[in-house]
Every structure is written in structure tokens, then in C-alpha cells.
């Protein structure tokens, strides 16, 4: 019984995905997908950035903290960047950011990078579908921390009451329920 | 015994006046406590802590005279997070208000003296409370001549132009305005206040009190100039601006030596400042 209840819950789960699109290529591709009536899921909320090179990785870390279920970053193909090498610099940062977040416990399906030129409206639509499915497969965002451990957190003394094996949890602070 | 001193009372913005042009954004806010609660009584030179809900809290000098019972007036320059959020608010928005805090200008004690007010930019706001108190009809006769030297960066950075006519034709009162750099159709003085005191203000070394407020460097340079003109340290009064959180001398941010600017100040005579360490 629990099985399909979980999938039912997944069915209704409509992930909130923030898409950082580079103004010269991917934003235009999204525009093209729209003007040529291509159907693609409506989960993405677009943020226009001048170039992927302008996207500070801290913004992505904060976007997850603010509750995004998934993030898509799309820019011009390497070599076509309007600013010559913005995407080259961005690429190294994104590789490192993806490694960091995956290592710290954020599922890899949540953070997606790709290149999409202004003419690839169709490809953009399929990328969005792909990202929505990937994020749906890992469920809603529950925060960077393992929520079950937070019960024991005792804000008063700052001692993590419940992390001791024989401890069931310190003073529960309603601030965090 | 004050118990609820950290929790602000609810106040409402009833009027906003855009004082200056956009590059140096200063607005004056008129506030009154919601539910028509009476305004707390205060003395000129005291300050209040204003909370912008969900953003933060900051100290602002009271710019209105205590005899004005129906509203509280503060002037705010947009510099940090709280002031920027405050500048976004519109008439009718609610803010938190607590106070009054600090000591006050020694206006009672300085009765029967000449009063000289030297201000730099937003430093005019706290002085305005003392100016309006002195020029109030039933106080005016207690004081001698009033001279004012108000320095601004440029003509469109001037504050309280709606008060200037009232100040100008108050009896036995002269006002001089100055800006940093000359610009066309400006016929008042030009230059920094400390260079103009000698010839714009008639300085008496007896029976005259000097109220100085502005950016820290301006306060220091004007005080040095006054001392050179023979003014005694006890006759020079200034009000200091420090970073504050509690306003009650507990949170440890605003101290100069062992004295707290929020509790033992913000108004100090230069005599007191002399035996305080140079840490402001």
C-alpha cells in the first residue's frame, strides 16, 4: 500500500526548478521554443543572466537554501560565448560546485548544467523535460541537513543533544519544528 | 523599572518628505504611535531605536522639538540595510519604535546664553530638535542671539528648506549656508565649515554655547578651529553617532572608554571628551 501511495505523492509533486539562462543563447532558445509552440513542463522559473560566467556559485547554493527543488544552468556552447570565454570559466566552477554539493549530500539530479544555443528551441524543450524528470525522481527538497537529526538540536546551549548514541535528544526548541 | 525595553511599540508613518536629490538620498519621516497612544516625552538631543520589521533596527536622532506633541520627526540618510529598507516604505506602513534613549542637549542649563549651531549634512537633524526648542515662542526669550552655520555638500543636498523661512525671520537669528564646491546661482558661502567660522560667525568666548554635529572628521576639525578662537571646551557641545543595538548600555557596542554613548551620551561637552580616550 505504501508503494503506490508514495508514487501517488510523487505524481502530485511538481518540482520548483530555477533555470539560469544566458541571455544570448539559452534565453533565446527558450523564446524560440515558446514561439514555435513546443510543449514543455511549466516547472521552470527563468532567471536571465548575461552569461554563465556571471553566475556566482554562491547564488546556486543560496537558491537551494531558499527552497528550489532543482536548478538548471544553461549557456552558449563553449566557443560561441558572446563574451568569448565566459562559459569556459563557468565550466570549471560548475564542475567543482557539482562535486561539492553531491559530496555534501545534494542528489546530483538536482543540479543540471548544459549548453543550448539560440537556434536549439527543440533541444531546450527536451532539456527541460529531462531536468523535470530527474528532479521528480529524487523528490522534494528537504534542506541541506538530515531533518531527522535536527530534533535533538538544542539551540540554547548549541549542543547537538541527540548526536550522542545513547542520547535521544536534548531540549527540543520549538523554533526549529 | 522598565521591563519591556527590548520590544518596540508599533508606530505608523504619517508623512514622508524627500529632502535631497537622488545621489545623497535623505528623507524625513513623520511618525505617530498606532492607536493614538500619546508620544513619549523626550528632551532635545535624545534618540530612538527604529525597527524595520524583518530587516533590523537602528538609532535615529529625534529631529522635532519636544513641544511638538502630535508627531515624531526623524531624518534618515540611505546608507545601510535598515535605512535602505526604511526608504522603501510608504505612508501608512508600520514600523517599531522604542525610546527615548540617551541624555540631552543641556538647553535648560544654557539659558541666557547666545547659541551657535554648526551642522554638517545630516548632522543638522539632531540639532534641529535643539534649534526648534530654542526658537519656540515661549523659550525664545530665555536665550540670547542665535547664529547657525549649516554646511551641505551641494545645493540639492540642503535639508529642511521648508523650515528656513521660519528660522530666517525668527528674531535675533542669523543663518549662513555653505557648500563644499562653488556652483552657479549660489550666493551663500562656499567651503568647509571650520574654515568659515572665523569670518561668518561672531564668536564670543563668554556667554556663548556652540552646538556642533556632523560626520566625525567635521566635528573634530570644527572643534579644533573653535579652540583656536579661544572658545572654552566646556562651551562646545557635540552629539556622537555610534553603532548601537540595545540603547541601554548593555550590548557593549557604543562605548568610548568606560562610558556608553547610548546611556552617558550621545551628547558630550568637549570638556568630557577630553578625558575620554580618542576612540570615536
Amino acid at each position, binding site marked *: 500500500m505504501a508503494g503506490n501511495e508514495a508514487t501517488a505523492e510523487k505524481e502530485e509533486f511538481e518540482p520548483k526548478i530555477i533555470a539560469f539562462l544566458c541571455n544570448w543563447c539559452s534565453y533565446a532558445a527558450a523564446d524560440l521554443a515558446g514561439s514555435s509552440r513546443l510543449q514543455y513542463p511549466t516547472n521552470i522559473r527563468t532567471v536571465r543572466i548575461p552569461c554563465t560566467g556571471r553566475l556566482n556559485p554562491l547564488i546556486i547554493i543560496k537558491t537551494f537554501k531558499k527552497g528550489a527543488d532543482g536548478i538548471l544552468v544553461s549557456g552558449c556552447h563553449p566557443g560561441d560565448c558572446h563574451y568569448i570565454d565566459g562559459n569556459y570559466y563557468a565550466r570549471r566552477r560548475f564542475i567543482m560546485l557539482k562535486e561539492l554539493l553531491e559530496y555534501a549530500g545534494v542528489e546530483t539530479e538536482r543540479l543540471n548544467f548544459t549548453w543550448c544555443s539560440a537556434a536549439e528551441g527543440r533541444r531546450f524543450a527536451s532539456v527541460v523535460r529531462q531536468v523535470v524528470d530527474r528532479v521528480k525522481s529524487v523528490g522534494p527538497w528537504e534542506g541541506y541537513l538530515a531533518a531527522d537529526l535536527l530534533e535533538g538540536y538544542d539551540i*540554547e546551549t548549541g549542543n547537538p543533544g541527540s548526536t550522542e548514541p545513547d542520547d535521544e535528544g536534548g531540549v527540543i526548541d520549538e523554533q526549529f519544528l | 523599572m522598565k521591563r519591556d525595553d527590548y520590544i518596540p511599540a508599533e508606530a505608523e508613518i504619517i508623512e514622508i518628505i524627500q529632502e535631497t536629490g537622488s545621489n545623497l538620498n535623505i528623507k524625513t519621516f513623520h511618525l505617530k504611535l498606532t492607536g493614538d497612544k500619546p508620544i513619549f516625552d523626550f528632551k532635545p538631543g535624545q534618540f530612538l531605536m527604529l525597527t524595520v520589521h524583518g530587516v533590523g533596527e537602528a538609532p535615529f536622532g529625534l529631529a522635532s522639538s519636544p513641544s511638538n506633541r502630535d508627531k515624531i520627526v526623524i531624518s534618515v540618510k540611505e546608507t545601510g540595510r535598515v535605512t535602505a529598507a526604511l526608504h522603501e516604505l510608504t505612508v501608512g506602513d508600520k514600523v517599531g519604535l522604542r525610546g527615548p534613549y540617551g541624555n540631552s542637549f543641556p538647553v535648560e542649563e544654557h539659558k541666557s546664553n547666545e547659541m551657535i549651531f554648526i551642522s554638517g549634512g545630516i548632522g543638522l537633524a539632531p540639532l534641529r530638535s535643539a534649534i526648534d526648542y530654542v526658537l519656540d515662542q515661549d523659550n525664545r526669550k530665555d536665550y540670547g542671539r542665535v547664529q547657525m552655520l549649516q554646511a551641505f555638500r551641494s545645493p540639492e543636498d540642503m535639508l529642511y528648506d521648508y523650515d528656513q523661512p521660519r528660522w530666517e525671520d525668527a528674531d535675533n537669528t542669523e543663518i549662513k549656508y555653505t557648500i563644499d564646491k562653488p556652483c552657479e546661482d549660489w550666493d551663500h558661502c562656499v567651503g568647509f565649515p571650520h574654515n568659515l567660522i572665523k569670518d561668518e560667525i561672531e564668536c564670543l568666548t563668554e556667554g556663548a554655547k556652540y552646538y556642533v554635529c556632523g560626520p566625525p572628521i567635521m566635528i573634530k576639525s570644527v572643534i579644533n578651529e573653535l579652540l583656536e578662537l579661544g572658545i572654552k571646551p566646556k562651551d562646545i557641545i557635540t552629539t556622537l553617532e555610534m*553603532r548601537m543595538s540595545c540603547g541601554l548600555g548593555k550590548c557593549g557596542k557604543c562605548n568610548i572608554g568606560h562610558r556608553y554613548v547610548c546611556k552617558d551620551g550621545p551628547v558630550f561637552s568637549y570638556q568630557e571628551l577630553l578625558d575620554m580616550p580618542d576612540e570615536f
Partner: protein
Amino acid sequence: MRLKKLNSKDLIGLLEVLFAEYNLIAPFKVEQGRLNRVLYRFIRQDTEIPAIYLKELPETTPKNFILPRDERLDFNGLEQADRSDETRTRLFFGVRSCDLAAIELFDDVFLDEDYLDPFYESRRKSNIFIGYSNQILPPNNFQKELGIDYFDHQLAPAFLYEDLEARGRDHYYLKIKAGFEFPGAVENYLEELKTGENDQLEALLSDWEAKFAQESEFEIKSKLPFSEKIAFNQVDWQEPTASCLGCGVCTYYCPTCFCFDFFWDRSTKNRAWDSCMFSVFTEHASGHNPREEQHQRWRQRLLHKFSYHPQNYGGKPGCVGCGRCIYKCPVNLDIRKVIKAVDNSLIEGGAGQ
């Protein structure tokens, strides 16, 4: 004043009775990351009592419970707390005399009549502190120099002394001051002292004190409060504090540091610890900062404890000499080295005597 003796088993029995009666808080040795630390903890069930660890000075102090690191200023929550009296009194077991002196300092600051802090008051009023001492002087302790008695403090109605070398019933002495009663059931764990044994404890404490005297050769010659003028003008603050990184750990672990800041979590106003060692502590929105350099912040921290606080609070020192700031500091910067630098200048400046 009554003196009792008890062995370890009796102590556990005594604690079980206290656990039934009060909200018991005691120090535990906990393994966290690569550190073995002694921290105060609420005791949730009596099976934890044997794990109580009193031997070493705890890293945290009752300050974490009375002036917590993070506190929601929930004023109406306070109203209910005042009215409902079922919140059990809290009993801190095993508090050192230097930490008790720190709590007394907080009371001076937060319970002064004209600005009574309601939040501090509600956390402070229903607390009992049972003191503790043994013959090991905590590392880097210099509380003697600030006139704090090793073995007693007036905030503690009862004091426990542990003689680590003695066995059986001579292991623990419990001094219960007049006017304080333990719950009745405690009596059967306490053995009444036979006649002539009272001075046995006195003798023990005095040779502990003699031992401590040789161990700490640090000495403050000038009387408190240090003169602000000389400290500001004649002391080279740069050289002794050059290795400070400005991380503020010393103020987080200092039992007497109480500077705080407000912050907003959505619309509720909160209070959290702040530190004068942080660069933004006194930074104005305009960017002007009266204390730009780290040595100026060190000057503030040291003089607040040794000059400003004594001037504002009747000569009482703002530091209790517990030594935590020394071994918790990532670069082990020793506050005694800086005190010495100021002390020497004061003596040269003639204001020392």
C-alpha cells in the same frame, strides 16, 4: 553550616534524588570530532547520572543556559512562563567558583533596577548552583589574581569537594550552608561528620591552596580598575596581540562576556552573542569604524574587563581568571601576556600603586 562526607556510590544516590526533584544539568565528557570535551547537558534519565564528569573544568558554563547563544525575544511567551510555576527549578551540579563569580557579574549587568532584562530574569530566577572543587588547578587558571576564592562562592548554597587521592567515605565532602535544605531523601546518603573531622576539610583545602599558589606564578601588580588614559596612551598593544586572528572564540567561551546583538528571523526579534573581536562589531553603515585594527579590539576586550567594568560596577573585575580563552584560542594567545604588558606600563606610569 553542616558538613557531610560521602563516597561515589552515595553521590550517585544523592544525584538520583536531585534528578527526581529538579531539572538537573551537569557536565559530561563527550567525544566530538577530534576533541574530547566536557560540556553541561540536561540529564534526561537517571541512567546517565554515573556518566557525570566533574574532574576537569567544563568548556561551557551556565552562561549557555542563562544567556543562550541564540534566544528568541518572545515577550508574550515570557508572560506565560511567568505565570506558569510548573517549570521545575533548574539545578546546575558541579559549578566551579570562577563560573559562579561570572554569573554574579551577569546579575549586576542584567538585573540592575533601571534596565531590568526580562528575558535574562526569566532564565535566571529559578536556578540552584551546587559548587565543586578538587585539588587539580584547571590549566591556565589565574582566578586568585582577581580575588576569587577557589573553594566557595556565595551564589552556591552547597559545595562539593572531591579529594581524588582519598578512598571510600573520605572521597567527597559536602558543605551545606545554613538556610538551604536538600530534599529529605538525600539525608540517608550523607554520613554525619564525627567530631573533630570538621577541621579535616579545612586542612585539606588549605594545602590544596598552597599547592595552587606555587603552580601559577602569574601576578597582577596594579589595582583594578586599570587607568584608561595610561592604557590608551602608553601601552604598545600591537606587539603582544600581533598573532590574534580576530575569530572571537575567546569571547564565545568566556563566562563573563555578555555583549549581544539583535537579529530578525522573519518578523520575530532574536538576540545572539556578539564579539568585540569581530571587525564589524563597531562598523558604522557609512563604513567608518572607530576600531579598524585588531589590536584596538584587543584593547577594548581587555580594558572592558580590567578597567571599564570595574569603573561602572563598583570595582568588581570583569574577568574571573578561568583560563578558557587561553587554551580555546586557535593561536593560544595568552591574555596574561597582554595583562602583563598593561600592568608594566601602569607601574612605570606611576599609577600602579
